[in-house]
């Protein structure tokens, strides 16, 4: 087994809201690992991600640190550089679609508004990372990725961005205060702007071929 930390703790991007992302690489099953605490992947699967140039492979290649190695080797480091990231167009389209389904649910009066806002945050964060992998010299990962794209950064207000991030933390980690209907109402107009921003990223990636 190999265990890695990745994400914000490796970037030094730590706040009270940060959690610690842990990756465990295993052969077959390992009952010692709690899937709530670890992202669990087989060695074969990680190898496939490297070969296909998956965005997660790039995340791990650029932002992971070995914590434990059963055999003394650094498996990820030994994989070298992942293949070129070639999925920007399809990944960006997917995250646009995910945003659209969440936004539609909200407009239709979903009873699960926090989940939908959390989904929107995921779509925003991930499309920014996919864009950065093909458009920026230094790809950006993590919760602030959409605000680290230089002149292509998202133009959401701090309050709106914070509301979306709070929804993500509530939905995944169950931490934080519930979000008021006033905050949600304030957010709605900004989500329209947000959708335009996503489209502009997609178009740029799409034009790139």
């Amino acid at each position, binding site marked *: 087994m190999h265990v890695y930390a990745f994400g914000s703790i490796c970037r030094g991007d730590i706040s009270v809201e940060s959690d610690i992302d842990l990756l465990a690489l295993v052969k077959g099953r390992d009952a010692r690992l709690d*899937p*709530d605490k670890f*992202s*669990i*992947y*087989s060695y*074969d*699967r990680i190898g*496939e991600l490297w070969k296909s140039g998956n965005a997660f492979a790039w995340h791990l290649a650029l932002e992971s640190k070995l914590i434990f190695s059963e055999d003394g080797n650094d498996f990820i480091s030994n994989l070298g550089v992942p293949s070129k990231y070639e999925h920007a167009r399809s990944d960006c389209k*997917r995250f646009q*679609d*995910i945003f659209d*389904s969440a936004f539609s*649910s909200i407009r239709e009066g*979903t*009873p*699960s*508004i*926090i*989940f*939908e806002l*959390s*989904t929107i945050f995921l779509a925003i964060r991930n499309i920014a990372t996919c864009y950065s992998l093909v458009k920026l010299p230094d790809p950006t990962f993590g919760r602030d990725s959409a605000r680290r794209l230089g002149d292509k950064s998202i133009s959401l207000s701090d309050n709106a961005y914070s509301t979306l991030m709070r*929804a993500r933390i*509530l*939905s*995944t*980690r*169950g*931490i934080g205060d*519930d979000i008021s209907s006033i905050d949600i109402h304030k957010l709605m107009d900004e989500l329209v702007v947000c959708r335009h921003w996503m489209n502009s990223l997609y178009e740029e990636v799409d034009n790139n071929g």
Partner: protein
Amino acid sequence: MDEFVSRMATQRHVLNIVNKKIVSNEKLFGLSSKAIDRWVHKNHLGYESELVQLLRNVSSELFFMATRSQEPVSSEYELRRQNIIEMVSRLELVV
């Protein structure tokens, strides 16, 4: 539909079943085990109730599939997918 989107649609479906039908102090925000724990605690529900057990089981299956979603489809994977469908049907009856 790709597996990631499909799992998200399943989560949405389950959350909507629960949040539409159950009058609670606080809605269920997600299907992570921590979100379920919070919901159970905030609404003074029994950890051993069938509803909570079903939610935990759906959650567990979805998160298992998340880390293995792109591995070759195996009979076990299909079985888990089938389990989820059955549990969601049961959930609709329980709430």
